[in-house]
């Protein structure tokens, strides 16, 4: 399935766009998507850390991704 991933802050700079599309298998996990992103955009691996949010909640590595989920790359936050 094709998934859409929003990228913010430095992740947007690294990925070159605020929206990335990936072709993944059904039943892919958030952890696997993180891995795929780091392989595709190695500079993500140089960040202090990054999270994936799925439907506006921070995802665990074993969180399953389903079609239509809103996924976002969350680099270290720095609001306030």
């Amino acid at each position, binding site marked *: 399935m094709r998934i859409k991933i929003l990228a913010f802050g*430095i992740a947007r700079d690294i990925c070159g766009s605020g929206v990335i599309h990936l072709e993944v298998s059904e039943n892919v996990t958030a952890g696997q998507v993180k891995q795929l992103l780091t392989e595709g955009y190695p500079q993500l691996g140089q960040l202090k850390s990054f999270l994936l*949010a799925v439907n506006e909640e921070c995802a665990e590595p074993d969180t399953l991704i389903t079609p239509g989920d809103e996924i976002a790359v*969350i680099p*270290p*936050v*720095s*609001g*306030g």
Partner: protein
Amino acid sequence: MPIHLHLADTPLDIMACIGQVTKPESGGVNVFIGTVRNATKGKPVLRLEFEAYESMALREMRKIAEEALGKWPVQAIAIHHRTGVLQVGDVAVVIAVGAAHRDAAFEACRFAIDTLKQTVPIWKKEVFEDGEVWVAAHP
């Protein structure tokens, strides 16, 4: 209404925040104002640029407000954050808490700003003469 959230790229209104949380039952209103500082580790900052994952940021701000209302006897909390380009001296964030007594207002306000800085998907980029840096992105 005990929770007031605001996230927009226009200047914040501190008096509005105070007004939102000051109830007849309030004996104290605690306000935290985050401003844009002119330097980082001695290096002059030209401006900051703030970006938010808006829908999730508002969700996380609401969670903070709900947690504060649950943990302390406070009457209302306002969490306002600005996005976009901010100049030195501009107000980036205002958190206001109204309570019957000041201890709860101080503690809830402190909790809210400390937690916002950990959990809300907002990012700031510092712009210097010689480049730009996303704060806290790299070890």
